């Protein structure tokens, strides 16, 4: 008997799963034994909590009294690992922040994964472990989840959706429509860091300096602001895609007011400034993942600023602008040379330019 006459499973083209593999396979999403193994060996250890470990179709939770905030977001970032984080930690921070921007204390999450066949399991483990750490730091639990696998070529590695619930304390009213003339605009620190960090590792554009994303959970900063200023905090927003400019444009339109920024007051660090000059970017349009904008009544803005500056994520906090009546629905920049210009919404992404 020679080897040639024995069947060679590694040459089979049917999707019969081999016993062990170091990459994600279609069978991992099939709901059978391999799915079970994946959940028990990858997800549960990293995300461990009583509600999850019931491993039922859905989680049953008891919530404290108060209004429930509910938010969802999907994460498709490329590259999946970047300086300062990965798609896993981002999936936690992003949804924590969406809840925090409603004034809520984030509590419980769902996490749904769409994995591409061929994704190294070591990458998946790393991402889920990172999620676990981010969740633990933010004080949230991932109580339910789902995993699907798509054919090679149909997935870009990994997509994650997280949905979260939180409780909004009594008396807290946060909405973009509540900005009013006279309010001051605050930011907790240097802008444009995340977008430039991502750009700096992209082929064809890399820098020789490591730029670390600012991705972080902002619920403590929000809590600190609400503690000192309560209902005088009118609007909260985390300026992610589209940057500070897009977020403030949306708020100005929603509230029917104008927002004027003071260019000299906007914190931008030297590395980000250099990168933006080189690529021809305006930092106002570059994404952030650890920044919070607050629009606060003038009587309490200083108190919020002081509270933020006492927190590690707010040491560079600054008052960067003011809400006015006119021109309604518009964001205006008072430039460093003393002129004023409109800061419009961009129609698409900023692209690096040489002109």
């Amino acid at each position, binding site marked *: 008997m020679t080897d040639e006459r024995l069947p060679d499973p590694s040459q089979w083209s049917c999707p019969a799963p081999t016993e062990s593999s170091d990459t994600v396979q279609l069978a991992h999403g099939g709901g059978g034994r391999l799915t079970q193994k994946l959940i028990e060996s990858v997800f549960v250890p990293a995300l461990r909590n009583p509600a999850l470990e019931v491993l039922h179709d859905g989680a049953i939770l008891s919530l404290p009294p108060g209004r429930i905030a509910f938010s969802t977001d999907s994460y498709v970032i490329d590259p999946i690992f970047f300086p300062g984080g990965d798609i896993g930690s981002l999936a936690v921070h992003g949804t924590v922040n969406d809840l925090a921007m409603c004034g809520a204390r984030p509590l419980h999450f769902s996490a749904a994964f769409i994995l591409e066949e061929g994704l190294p399991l070591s990458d998946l483990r790393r991402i889920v472990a990172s999620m676990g750490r981010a969740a633990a730091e933010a004080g949230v639990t991932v109580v339910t989840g789902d995993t699907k696998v798509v054919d090679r070529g149909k997935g870009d590695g990994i997509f994650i959706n997280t949905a979260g619930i939180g409780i909004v304390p009594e008396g807290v009213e946060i909405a973009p429509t509540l900005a009013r003339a006279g309010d001051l605009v605050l930011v907790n620190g240097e802008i444009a860091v995340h977008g430039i960090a991502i750009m700096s590792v992209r082929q064809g554009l890399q820098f020789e*300096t490591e730029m670390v994303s600012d991705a972080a959970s902002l619920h403590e900063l929000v809590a600190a602001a609400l503690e000192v200023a309560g209902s005088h905090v009118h609007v909260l927003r985390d300026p992610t895609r589209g940057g500070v400019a897009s977020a403030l444009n949306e708020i100005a339109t929603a509230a029917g007011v104008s927002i004027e920024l003071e260019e000299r007051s906007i914190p931008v660090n030297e590395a980000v400034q250099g990168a933006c000059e080189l690529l021809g970017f305006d930092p106002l349009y570059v994404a952030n993942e650890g920044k919070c904008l607050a629009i606060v009544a003038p009587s309490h803005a200083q108190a919020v600023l002081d509270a933020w500056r006492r927190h590690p994520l707010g040491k560079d906090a600054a008052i960067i602008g003011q809400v006015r009546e006119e021109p309604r629905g518009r964001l205006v920049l008072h430039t460093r040379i003393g002129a004023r210009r409109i800061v419009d919404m961009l129609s698409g992404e900023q692209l690096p330019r040489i002109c």
Partner: protein
Amino acid sequence: MCLGVPGKVVAITRHEVGMQMGRVQFGGIHKEVCLSFLPDIQLGDYVIVHAGFAISQLDEAEAAITLEILRQMGDLAELTEADADAVPNTGSDAVR
């Protein structure tokens, strides 16, 4: 048409045939740049960089002169303005 950014030469690195590369610092970042068009460039010099190439060495003396000339012209213009619509003042600085 010409996004040319000033930076400081912090390293002169490899030399392939016909192509001298170096590292230039812009604000807080470093980037690899081709220095071939400035064969006499040295560490610490400032250059203008466009599309990954250094195209000129910044003349620091000339740079200072431009600012100084403007300053002088500006002061003169404001003095003239101030004279033209001068109101007897209490001795405070009339030229801002």
